[in-house]
């Protein structure tokens, strides 16, 4: 055991597993005797354990160095403290896994700990076997094989902004190509986060109105009392808070395209006003008396079931038919197969440039986690996940540890625990070769022997897969 202030070099035990990054454990608390014992167990597993007596010092040490595991000694009734530690670690790059040491672990605390993404709750009197098994589990998780990132190719439609290769997106591209040159209103259907606005932008970009403005309104984001003036504008003093004249979005979109997102959330009264604006091609500012001509192409979108809303009397049928001249339905991300990885690569590149980082690979475990996630929030969720991963990543490879903690602890919405059945043979083979090469530390001959193929065959595959 070493005090964090006076570290000693690490001496891996002779029987420690090889090819794994060294385990660095930080123990916080004042149970010196127990920590001494834990230090012995850790060293036997090829790691090193440092101690620090309080959270203040621990925080400093955590920000200065990289740690694999954080052991925090807590009292039994200590859920809040545990939550605090979990929150602290969430903010750290290369964050260590959290393990709580309590005098008598309870089921309640264990459940709470799981929800917080805590790796394990152990008794202060540590069982050697259980502790060593935990260390091995952490080390195994760190042993990941790196795969090359797929090339994210943008499609030629819609100004080259759409990244998709999946067959599920083909009907969407066809529809864009058909409707863009015309003037018909378009209704885009799809779950939240499937990229409805991007499709609307693509239609606008390929239309004769491309030189005009593209104005988007998220109807669900704007409170009902503000939406009318946002859409149609208002004159100064029209109502309390109308401190100046405001140009509405209909007017701003003249000669271009107006995209009304989440239109199903709008009140019937406002639906009526939109219908009038579309039919009469003019709007009236709130508090104004003169009609203002507008020339807009309308694209609307919803994640709701408009026929059902019509049946319930919550959406105007006449407006529906006016909007749904052409309907485009977007698939869920889960239905887009390998687009998941192509989009991941695309976002890694985009956010990498934004945050001055560069990515060349992704580990097999990260791929498994991505494929195993449910993606209820679709592409928007993927974008957010990748952006956060880019922020915490500390090298050119996206690893499992960069992905949300709860995915690794089973707390996230996972579609399945095993690698996705959607993986291709090529994907599986590349991943397996990468894993074996990691094991042999890049020795092709040894890897070929393990895989049972000729060295030249393996060398070719390594080249083909870009490993």
């Amino acid at each position: 055991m070493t005090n964090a202030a006076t570290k000693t070099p690490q001496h891996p035990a002779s029987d420690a597993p090889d090819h794994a990054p060294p385990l660095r454990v930080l123990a916080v608390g004042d149970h010196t005797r127990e920590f001494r014992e834990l230090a012995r167990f850790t060293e036997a597993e090829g790691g090193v354990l440092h101690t620090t007596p309080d959270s203040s010092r621990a925080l400093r040490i955590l920000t200065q160095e990289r740690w694999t595991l954080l052991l925090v000694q807590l009292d039994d009734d200590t859920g809040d403290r545990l939550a605090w530690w979990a929150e602290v670690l969430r903010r750290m790059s290369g964050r260590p896994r959290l393990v709580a040491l309590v005098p008598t672990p309870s089921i309640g605390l264990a459940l709470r700990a799981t929800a917080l993404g805590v790796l394990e709750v152990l008794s202060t009197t540590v069982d050697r076997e259980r502790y060593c098994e935990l260390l091995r589990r952490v080390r195994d998780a760190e042993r990941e094989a790196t795969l090359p990132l797929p090339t994210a190719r943008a499609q030629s439609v819609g100004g080259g902004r759409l990244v998709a290769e999946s067959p599920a997106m083909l009907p969407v591209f066809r529809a864009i190509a058909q409707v863009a040159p015309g003037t018909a209103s378009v209704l885009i259907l799809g779950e939240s986060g499937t990229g409805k606005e991007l499709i609307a932008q693509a239609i606008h970009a390929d239309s004769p109105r491309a030189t005009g403005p593209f104005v988007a309104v998220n109807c669900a984001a704007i409170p009902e009392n503000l939406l009318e003036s946002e859409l149609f504008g208002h004159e100064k003093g029209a109502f309390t808070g109308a401190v100046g004249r405001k140009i509405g979005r209909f007017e701003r979109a003249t000669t271009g395209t107006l995209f009304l997102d989440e239109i199903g959330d709008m009140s019937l009264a406002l639906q009526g006003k939109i219908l009038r604006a579309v039919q009469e091609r003019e709007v009236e500012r709130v508090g104004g008396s003169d009609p203002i001509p507008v020339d807009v192409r309308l694209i609307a979108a919803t994640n709701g079931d408009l026929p059902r809303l019509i049946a319930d009397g919550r959406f105007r049928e006449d407006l529906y038919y006016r909007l749904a001249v052409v309907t485009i339905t977007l698939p869920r991300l889960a239905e887009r197969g390998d687009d998941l990885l192509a989009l991941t690569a695309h976002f890694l590149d985009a956010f990498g440039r934004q945050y001055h980082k560069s990515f060349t690979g992704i580990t097999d475990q990260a791929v498994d986690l991505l494929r195993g996630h449910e993606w209820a929030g679709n592409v928007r969720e993927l974008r957010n996940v990748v952006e956060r991963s880019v922020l915490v990543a500390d090298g050119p490879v996206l690893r499992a540890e960069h992905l949300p903690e709860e995915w690794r602890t089973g707390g996230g919405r996972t579609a399945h625990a095993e690698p996705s059945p959607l993986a291709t043979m090529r994907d599986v083979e590349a991943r397996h070769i990468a894993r074996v090469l990691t094991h042999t530390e890049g020795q092709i001959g040894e890897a070929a022997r393990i895989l049972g193929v000729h060295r030249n065959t393996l060398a070719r595959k390594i080249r083909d897969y870009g490993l």
Partner: protein
Amino acid sequence: MSPEARISPLQVEQALRLLPEVDALAPLRAFLVSTSRGRDATQPYRTVGTRLLLPADLTHAVPRAIARVTEHLRALYDAAVEALQAEQEDDLPAAVASLLRAGELEVQVGRGTQAHAWYDQALRIAETLRDRRPEIAALRRFGDLKTRLGRFDIAARYYQRSLAIAEAERDREGSARACHGLGEVALAQAKWQGAGSWYTRGLQYEADDPSLAAHLHLGLGEAARARGQFETAEEQLGRAQRLFAAHGDDVGLARVLNAVGDLEALRERRPEALARYQEAFAHLRPVAGYPQLEIAIRLRICQLYLDWGRLPDAEDEIRRAEETAIVHNATPELARLYLVMGQVRGRQEDDTGFVFFEKAIELCRGPEPTPRLEAEVYLEYGLFRKQLGELEEAEAYLGRAREILEAIGNGPLLARVDAELATLPTV
């Protein structure tokens, strides 16, 4: 599908529109907000108004709300009865103390107008007494209240009166506390040198209260940091930290670590700043009842992430602060959070970010209006519009900020608004 399953929850703003704004329902309105549930976390424009609630859930929660109201009323009534008993016993300083305590209870639940009434009554009695210490205390409470409401000029006048009497009465502690108040006002108005002078003067009284001394050193550290004197700041904050630590004052330690975090952030030592803010949380965690401080620390972390360019982390932090503000009905803090959210969206050139400014303005005009903050929101709203090239609206919002500041009197902010108005091209 059963009819029950199809009942959708109400939105908070929908529910608040339905309930009349009568005094009797004010606690229920607050409770309704604090018990509402957040919507889908992926919705980027969600505000407190779009949170959801089920009236059926409220039925179960109403007894809890009533218990909380009863507890508050009981404490107020106790203070009132104590004041009456003190008057009967001809112990008017004790009566003043009871009235001031009742006012503090009102401040704790965010009812500034009610607190004002209690303090006013206390001051009127205190002014008739030969012993002037109750008057010194009452004036200081007014100063604290006005500072909280952002009425800095008025706050300064109260503290000045408190100081003048305390000095005349050779009340060292009263003088030092008044100086601390004046330092806080100067700090809030960005008058760094003035703030430093007031804190130094406060320390010269050598009041026999280490906690007060720690607060004065903290103030000196913050003033020095704002003036770019980092070494002095470090030294003063270190003194404050040692004094707070010696007395096991966790809240004081949280405040000073927050200030050290700011210092590290200014030195662009971001990981260290983050660690200090987290240490501040570590001290605050076991102490309940300081949501404003927790929100303040989270706002600093948010600012740190923004400067770092880590927008998603900044948004996460601000959403956590939002949750705290909603649960504790911290309305001015919530308005400030939405102001920051609006600024963040402005940086992203996202025009839908205006929904946050609108919500902030609505909150500032609530039952306990905060005109200074409202002016600040209008100022930032104007800048947001300017950033989007909407100059006519920018001018209108800056003009509204000007009107409010002229009415309440706030020189430094007014000067900033005028400077921004001057940079606008003629519309």
